[in-house]
């Protein structure tokens, strides 16, 4: 049975339009014109307990609005949402104890106090006994590699340390459902990797259900088998990441470094030549012809180095929408 059940979810905002200049200002003041902006349109999906699902889309696609409706911060304009058997918009205490929302650029920790003070407040608010709160804090701090940072004022922590402390605070009540909105935004590569490992470990240990949005594909590929792709408020894909990658990228990228420069016509019939610059060559090769083409390349050219990879998925998604293929 689905832990998150979303059917026909929509959210429409009323936005006042204003033209520039003095006349525009007067008109805006005297005769304000509103228009409806559909942030989310007829979105449906189900997520089973324990699943980790990635939520992809460009800026303004409707990811955060959807997450906020799922945790009860925003009332839907239409449709039905059930999370852990509750209607989120009622924000009943029992529901709030079972979920958490982490927003990469927002914080719940008290800025001037050490994270431990905020953790004490959270423990009291969620009714977690002191000894249990201490044990959980210690376990989560170990997983997140947090130590003396917990006794330093939040304002003195680095962005990565702060994000880890935010995660700790958000998970102290052991929620069953995690809504994570850009949890690694702005972190350096090491901190991103640490947060990813932590989330995977938390999911393994507690069986929590995770819905994650991120601008970093590495977050999605490392954590989520299944992805939802949203564009202009509509859901375009719900399925395995590999299927999406296949749809998005029917070709793979082959990088060649040759011993000596070659002419571009020499690559005819070996895929789509994207770039040739001295000894550096970049080809796009259909997935089903990859092995044959690679074998031919090695046979025909003096190859110093060869690398095959998927193009960055952000580019693929952008390209897909630009080409109007979804």
């Amino acid at each position, binding site marked *: 049975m689905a832990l998150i059940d979303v059917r026909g979810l929509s959210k429409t*905002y009323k936005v006042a339009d204003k033209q520039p200049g003095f006349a525009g200002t007067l008109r805006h003041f005297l005769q304000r014109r509103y228009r409806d902006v559909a942030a989310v349109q007829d979105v449906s999906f189900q997520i089973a307990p324990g699943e980790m699902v990635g939520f992809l889309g460009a800026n303004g696609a409707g990811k*955060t609005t959807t997450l*906020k409706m799922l*945790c*009860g*911060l*925003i*009332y839907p304009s239409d449709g039905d949402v059930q999370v852990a058997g509750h209607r989120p918009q009622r*924000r009943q*205490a029992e529901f*709030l*104890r079972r*979920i*958490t*929302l982490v*927003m990469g650029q*927002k*914080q*719940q920790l*008290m800025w*001037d*106090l050490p994270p431990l*003070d*905020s953790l*004490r*407040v*959270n*423990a*009291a*608010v*969620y009714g977690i006994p002191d000894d249990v709160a201490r044990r959980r804090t210690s376990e989560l701090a170990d997983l997140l590699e947090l130590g003396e940072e917990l006794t330093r004022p939040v304002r003195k922590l680095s962005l990565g340390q702060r994000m880890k402390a935010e995660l700790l605070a958000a998970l102290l009540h052991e929620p069953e459902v995690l809504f994570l909105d850009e949890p690694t935004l702005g972190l350096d590569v090491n901190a991103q990797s640490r947060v990813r490992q932590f989330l995977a470990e938390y999911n393994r240990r507690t069986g929590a259900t995770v819905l994650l949005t991120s601008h970093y594909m590495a977050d999605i590929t490392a954590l989520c088998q299944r992805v939802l792709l949203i564009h202009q408020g509509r859901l375009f894909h719900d399925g395995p990441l590999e299927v999406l990658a296949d749809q998005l990228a029917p070709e793979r990228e082959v990088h060649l470094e040759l011993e000596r420069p070659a002419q571009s016509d020499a690559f005819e019939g070996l895929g789509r030549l994207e770039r040739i610059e001295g000894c550096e060559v970049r080809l796009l090769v259909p997935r089903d012809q990859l092995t044959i083409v690679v074998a031919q390349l090695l046979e025909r050219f003096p190859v110093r180095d060869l690398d095959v990879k998927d193009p960055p998925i952000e580019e693929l998604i952008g390209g897909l929408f630009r080409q109007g293929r979804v």
Partner: protein
Amino acid sequence: MRIFGLNRRIIRVLLGSQYAHMLEYRAEIALWALSGVLPFIMLSVWSGSEARLGLGLDGVALDRYFLSAFLVRQFSVVWVVYAFEEDALLGRLSPYLLQPLHPLWRYVAAHLGEQLTRLPFAALIAAVFFVAQPQAFWLPSLGGFLLAWLATWLAFAIAFLFQSLIAALCFWSEKASALERLQFIPFVFLSGLLAPLTAFPPGVRALAQWTPFPYLIDFPARLLAGQPVDLIAGFAAQLAWVALLLPLVLLLWRAGVRRYSAMGA
């Protein structure tokens, strides 16, 4: 057991953390305490004027009234609308709304923490006042002090609820604090900060009794200064204002949260 979402542990931990938080701003709070010296300025204005005779208070009683007004004001200052407005605009309200505790309790705890931080500064200013005006020194009786403390606490409750009502309008208008400024002038005139209510013509006085303002400063200050007041009428009016404002705040808040779209988040 939780009452209004609170239990003893939450109260203890919230107050402790908010006090620690406010201590970080002790220098700023000391300046706020100093900036509340309007009653002393008014005292010097009234003391040097013949109009003082119309107040029905002799010199010492006037000193005590304005010192009491200063102290009551120190412990009933409310700034929830500004804190709430900032939190709503910056999206900091979202995490509070997702916890099983009404967000207003955090602001109550923050105010109480700030009052506790303010206490030594207010006491120091009172001590300096007594050094300058030794004839005004008095110690209220225990009963009188407890009644004044209760009246001050109720004054804080009225002011907090009144401002929370305005703060809840932030769900509709991002700059609801402008409304708070609108009520500042009647507050200053009718609360007793500028002059005891006895200084006003009977018509204005009668009108003022139907507003919450005299119960915010004049009534608790007179109690603390040991001056005659209608105890039953004063406390009944304070409780009536709390009983009127509380459900309004809760209703407006509930309607506001429905409208909330996590601005700036």
